């Protein structure tokens, strides 16, 4: 059978494989188990890990870059878990670093304070202060410049042949911008001057100067050293520079001979050049002699601060007493009732009642120098019954002419002076509307004899415009007790001035009745009949003794 055959050959094939590859198959099984077993992997990797890391680090930075995030995370995790552990680990490093930084900051501060103090109170110091204002520099800077004997502000290390700036130092780190152009320019100027004036090429410029700034130049075979110095540079500076050049020439032989424009290698000259950034100031030794000045200064500062504080306190208490007397005044003011004062975030709130005719509390502030105080008023309007305000209200209502004086005595309104009949008539009626006026006494008033036409003119008091009119009407109804105290003579007088009787007529008044006798025209009689009631106190008009002139034939 065909299938038998295949089965047979399969079996023999298997047999053959076994014979031929038994060893190999065992090895493959072993290798497979190694490859698939994670635990074994770790063991294998552990054997070579350290070496692998070292090898990789030697060739490039990739490993550090790859590990950075992991390390950052684990540090974060460690701090989150227990900050103490990391701070303990860092403590030995941090302590000295912080101490050192604080010490150097303090030293620098003390140095400049000393210098500034030293010169703050002298006449010289005063002049410098003016100079500072004029030049726009800070006082400390002016002091520094004036006490300066010299200061090296910049150091240029220049490649002699190309004029390329190899390294640059500055006492003021903000002044480094165009150092490379300056450096090129310096060589160009050197070349130019040498070409134009000097005979041989060995001669070099040693100093350029401008004002109190000097540029000192020293030449080496491959480098030029230039320093910018303010003030009188010491003689020794040239020597110091020369020493630095020799040092650099010796230590950078290879870099200089192979120079192709790359200045990287010359950052290392920093160490040789930084000692050139020196400065010297006047009065250094004197400073120690007189701590007195500093003490005086500090004492003075304290005195100034204290007096400022004391003055401020006085000012505060002054404001307080002003405020108290303002409140007293406000409480005493007629027509103002203070019900509460509260202080909230520097805003004083005054609540209460206020008659619209009373003194304006805001206007009063100025009297107590309190204009700038933050005050909020919350007054509800009301009608005050103090005599002063009743009078005010009355006078607003009846608008007395200048010739009239109003007084209030025990709820009686006294009207004095001179006024017209018309005004008085209406004033009397209106005044009784005002709460607090119970009666009116106008005996002290002389009546002006007014013309007939005047009666027609509009009454100055606009009754319609009276405030809260309905209320007034009610009061009017229930005020029979209110009585105007007017003598008979006055009533008669008023009747005469209002009715303007012709000379042919005589009038007598008694107990509410006006008796008229004599002769008069029909029109006058008619007029009188219609108008007599306008005079307060006249209830009836008695004319039986009056004859009509016109009826006479």
């Amino acid at each position, binding site marked *: 059978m065909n299938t038998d055959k295949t089965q047979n050959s399969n079996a023999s094939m298997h047999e053959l494989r076994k014979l031929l590859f038994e060893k190999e198959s065992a090895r493959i099984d072993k290798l497979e188990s190694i490859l698939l077993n994670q635990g074994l992997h770790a063991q294998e990797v552990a054997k070579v890990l350290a070496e692998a890391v070292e090898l990789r680090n030697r060739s490039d930075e990739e490993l550090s870059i790859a590990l950075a995030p992991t390390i950052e995370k684990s540090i974060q995790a460690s701090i989150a878990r227990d900050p103490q552990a990391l701070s303990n680990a860092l403590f030995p490093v941090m302590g000295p670093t912080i101490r050192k930084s604080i010490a150097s900051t303090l030293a620098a501060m003390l140095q400049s304070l000393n210098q500034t103090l030293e010169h703050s109170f002298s006449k010289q110091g005063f002049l410098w202060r003016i100079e500072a204002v004029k030049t726009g520099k800070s006082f400390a800077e002016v002091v520094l410049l004036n006490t300066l004997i010299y200061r090296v502000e910049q150091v240029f290390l220049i*490649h002699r*042949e190309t004029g390329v700036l190899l390294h640059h130092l500055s006492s003021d780190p903000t002044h480094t911008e*165009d150092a*490379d*152009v300056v450096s*090129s320019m310096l060589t160009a100027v050197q*070349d130019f001057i*040498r070409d134009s004036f000097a005979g041989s090429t060995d001669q070099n410029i040693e100093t350029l100067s401008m004002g109190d700034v000097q540029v000192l130049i020293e030449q080496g075979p491959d480098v030029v050293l230039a320093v910018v110095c303010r003030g009188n540079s010491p003689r020794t500076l040239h020597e110091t520079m020369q020493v630095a050049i020799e040092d650099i020439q010796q230590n950078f032989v290879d870099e200089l001979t192979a120079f192709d*424009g790359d*200045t990287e290698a010359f950052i290392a000259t920093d160490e040789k050049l930084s000692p050139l950034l020196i400065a010297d100031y006047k009065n250094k030794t004197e400073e120690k002699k007189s701590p007195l000045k500093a003490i005086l200064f500090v004492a003075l500062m304290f005195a100034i601060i204290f007096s400022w504080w004391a003055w401020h306190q006085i000012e505060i208490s002054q404001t307080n007493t002003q405020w108290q007397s303002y409140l007293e005044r406000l409480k005493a003011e007629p027509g103002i009732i203070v019900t509460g004062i509260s202080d909230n975030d520097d805003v004083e709130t005054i609540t209460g009642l206020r008659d619209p005719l009373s003194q304006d509390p805001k206007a009063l502030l100025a009297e107590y120098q309190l204009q700038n105080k933050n005050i909020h008023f919350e007054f509800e309007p009301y009608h005050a019954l103090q005599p002063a305000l009743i009078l005010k209200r009355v006078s607003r209502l009846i608008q007395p002419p200048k010739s009239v004086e109003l007084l209030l005595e025990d709820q009686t309104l006294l009207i004095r002076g001179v006024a017209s009949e018309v005004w008085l008539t209406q004033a009397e009626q209106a005044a009784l509307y005002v709460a607090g006026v119970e009666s009116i006494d106008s005996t002290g008033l002389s009546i002006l004899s007014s013309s007939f036409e005047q009666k027609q003119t509009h009454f100055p008091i606009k009754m319609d415009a009276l405030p809260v009119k309905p209320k007034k009407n009610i009061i009017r109804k229930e005020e029979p007790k209110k009585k105007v105290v007017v003598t008979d003579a006055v009533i008669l007088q008023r009747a005469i001035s209002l009715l303007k009787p012709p000379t042919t007529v005589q009038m007598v008044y008694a107990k509410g009745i006006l008796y008229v006798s004599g002769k008069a025209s029909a029109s006058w009689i008619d007029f009188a009949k219609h108008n007599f009631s306008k005079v307060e106190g006249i209830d009836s008009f008695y004319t039986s003794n009056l004859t009509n002139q016109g009826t006479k034939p």
Partner: protein
Amino acid sequence: MIQKKICILGAAGVGKTSLTAQFVFSKFSEKYLSSMGVKIDRKTVDVDGKQVNLMLWDIHGEEKYKKIPTSYLRGASGIMMVIDGTRPATLEMAQEILQRVETELGTIPHIYLLNKSDLTDAWSINDDDMQMLKNTGNPVFLTSAKTGDNVEASFLHLATALVTA
């Protein structure tokens, strides 16, 4: 940082100052202010991702009685030789200057700028002259300080040549 000193040379009025101003400040002025001595400017360019600081020495133009002092050229890494395309005489002057530099300082890498290419009507450098310049093996650029044409390209070309050399 790599620094390279580059000198801009040529006859008077060919546009040396204008080319430098165009390259460094992107500015151009029709006004002609004849240079005296040397003016140095700096421009940092990027060559293959590397920062290169070019110190540009704009030196006064060569005239019969006002030769360019070779001391200014000491340490120069490269020269931009500027020729005014409207004045053939400035081409001869360029050859003369290069000759003198060669004898006094040795060969310095240089490129030719045929400047004022915007003035096509007045252009008077013919093809033979052009070919002659190209035959020296040094790059030749047609530039205009006025329009800025090829200015940046020529400076960058020289910078690249100096750094990769």
